[in-house]
C-alpha cells in the first residue's frame, strides 16, 4: 500500500485515460494493481487495473471509464496521489519461443502493451492483433506500433483495419511455419472464441481474465472462475491468475 504521485493523466479516447505515476514497482507483465478510488466508504472496494507499462522511475495505467469508480478516477489531477496495493497476481508466463502473438480486444490492450515491450526487449518477434468496436477504441495503437514487429488492426465498424472481429485476423496465423506463443486479453466472449479456435488447432492461449474482485490477494475467494479440468474446483483470478491457460478455464 503506497501512495504514488500522478505525473500525467491524459485522455486517449472519449472513454479512456492513460495515467503515469511516479515511482518504481517490480511488476511483470500481466500483473495488476488494486487502486483506491476514494478515501470514503463509497466506492468501498479498490479497482483492479493492469500494469500498462513500466519505466525506470515511473509506471502507467490505461483504463476505460466503465462505471462509477473509473469515472471518479478520471477526475484525479496531476499532483494528486493514488493509493495502490500491488503488484498482484501472476503475470504472463515466459516463452522460450522466438515469436509471440498478442491478441487484444479494446481495453484488453492494457496489460499486453507492457508484455509487448518486454518481449521485444528480449529480442522476440511480437505480432500484435488489435481489435475494437471502432478506431477510437484501438487505444494507444500509435505507441504500440513503435514497439511491436507487426501490428494488425480490426474494427467492428470497419473504421480502421479489417472490417470484422479480431479473431478473423488470427486465421492466417494457424498456417504459420514457426512456432509461437499466444497471449490474449479482452472481452470474455472474444477470449472464449480465441480459445475455441486455438483448441481446434491444438494450441493453447494465455488469457488474462477479469472478474469482480474484493481483496485482490487471494484471501476472500470471491473472484473465482471454474477449473474446467476438475469439476467443483475454482481458481482465484486475483492470485492464481489473472492469466490462465485457456484450456483450464474455457
Amino acid at each position, binding site marked *: 500500500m503506497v501512495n504514488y504521485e500522478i505525473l500525467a493523466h491524459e485522455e486517449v479516447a472519449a472513454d479512456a485515460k492513460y495515467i503515469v505515476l511516479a515511482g518504481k514497482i517490480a511488476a511483470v507483465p500481466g500483473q495488476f494493481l488494486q487502486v483506491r478510488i476514494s478515501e470514503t466508504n463509497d466506492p*468501498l472496494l479498490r479497482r483492479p487495473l493492469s500494469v500498462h507499462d513500466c519505466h525506470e522511475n515511473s509506471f502507467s495505467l490505461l483504463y476505460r471509464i466503465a462505471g462509477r469508480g473509473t469515472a471518479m478516477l478520471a477526475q484525479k489531477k496531476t499532483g494528486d496521489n493514488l493509493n495502490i496495493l500491488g503488484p498482484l497476481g501472476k503475470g504472463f508466463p515466459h516463452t522460450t519461443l522466438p515469436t509471440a502473438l498478442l491478441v487484444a480486444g479494446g481495453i484488453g490492450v492494457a496489460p499486453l502493451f507492457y508484455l509487448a515491450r518486454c518481449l521485444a526487449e528480449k529480442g522476440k518477434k511480437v505480432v500484435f492483433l488489435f481489435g475494437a468496436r471502432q478506431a477510437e477504441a484501438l487505444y494507444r495503437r500509435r505507441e504500440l506500433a513503435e514497439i511491436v514487429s507487426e501490428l494488425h488492426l480490426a474494427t467492428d465498424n470497419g473504421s480502421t483495419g479489417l472490417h470484422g472481429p479480431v479473431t478473423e485476423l488470427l486465421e492466417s496465423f494457424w498456417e504459420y511455419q514457426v512456432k509461437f506463443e499466444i497471449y490474449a486479453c479482452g472481452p470474455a466472449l472474444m477470449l472464449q472464441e480465441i480459445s475455441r479456435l486455438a483448441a481446434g488447432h491444438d494450441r493453447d492461449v494465455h488469457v488474462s481474465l477479469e472478474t469482480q474482485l474484493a481483496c485482490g*490477494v487471494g484471501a476472500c475467494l470471491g473472484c473465482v472462475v*471454474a477449473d474446467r479440468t476438475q469439476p467443483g474446483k475454482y481458481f482465484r483470478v486475483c492470485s492464481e491468475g489473472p492469466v490462465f491457460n485457456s484450456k483450464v478455464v474455457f
Partner: protein
Amino acid sequence: MSKPDLNVNIGKMKLKNPVMPASGCFGYGEEYASYFDLSRLGAIVVKGTTREPWPGNLPPRLAETSAGLLNAIGLQNPGAVEALAKIRTLAHYGVPVILNVAGHSADDYCEVIKFFAEEKAVEAFELNVSCPNLTAGGMAFGTDPEIVYRLTSRAKQLTDKTLIVKLSPNVTDIAAVALAAERGGADAVSLINTLLGMAIDISKKEPVLANVTGGLSGPAVKPVALRMVWQVSAAVDIPVIGMGGICCAADALEFILAGASAVAIGTALFTNPLTCLQAIDGITAYLEENVVATVKEIVGLARKNQAQKREENQCGKS
C-alpha cells in the same frame, strides 16, 4: 504513564489485544502475512472450515453496494486436513488461532470439532451457525434458539477448548439466540455475521449473484451490528466479540463501548490490509488520551453512562 493494558480474556484464551481479523476475510493467514506482522494480532480467525473440502458457490460471488459488499462464497474451503496443515504454519506467530467451524448439519460441526479437538494449533472454535449462504430446512441454522442451544451443548461436550458461537443478524431477537448459546455452554458469542441481501443487474434483468442472495458486510451494516452488540452484551454474561463494518479504531471503540470485549475486522481489510494494526494503535492512543489503564475498563462504558443518565433524568422528572 505506562502503556495501556490491552489484554482481554475470551474463555480460556488470553489475547494481548482485542483485535482480530474476521473469518473468511483472512483465509488461513497466509495471504496477508506479507503485508504485516501477524504476531501483532490479538487472535487469528481462519476461514469457515468443514470436515471434507467444500467447493463453494458458482460465480459471480461478489457484488459491491453502497459502503457494503455482498458475498456468496458458500464456504469454499479445503477441508479439515488441509486446513490443519495451513494452521500449523501459523504457530510461530504465537497468536491464538480460532477455527471457524461450518457444516450442513449438527453432525458436520461435531466432526470438525472432533478432528481438531486434540490439536494444539487451534485454541478456540467459533461455530458459524449463521452463514446466510447456506440453509437448513429453508431457514438458516442460527435463527432458531433451540437448535443453537442443542448444537452448542453437543459441541461443548466434545471439547475443552474455548467455544464461541457466531450469531446471525437475520433474526427478530438476537439476544434470545445469544442466551441459547450461553445456556448451551458457549464461552463467548461473536456477532454479527452478514445480513442477507441481494443486488439486481438491471441490464441483464437478473440477480447479480449466481446464488441470488448473499451476505452484506462492510460499513453499511455497522449501525445494525452495533445495536445487536449492545442488545446481546446486555443479555448475556459471557464476553461478546463484536464485528460488522469496522474500518478504523473509532469504529472498534464504538463496539467496545457498546459492550464488546473484543472486535473482528473483515471487509475493511480488502481496502486496507493494515486496518487491524491501525485499530490496535488507535485504541492504545484513545486509552492514553482518556487516561484509562486497561481496555477492559471501557468495555460497555457507553451502557453504564447511558444507564446513569437515564437514572438522573428519572430523578429529575419525579
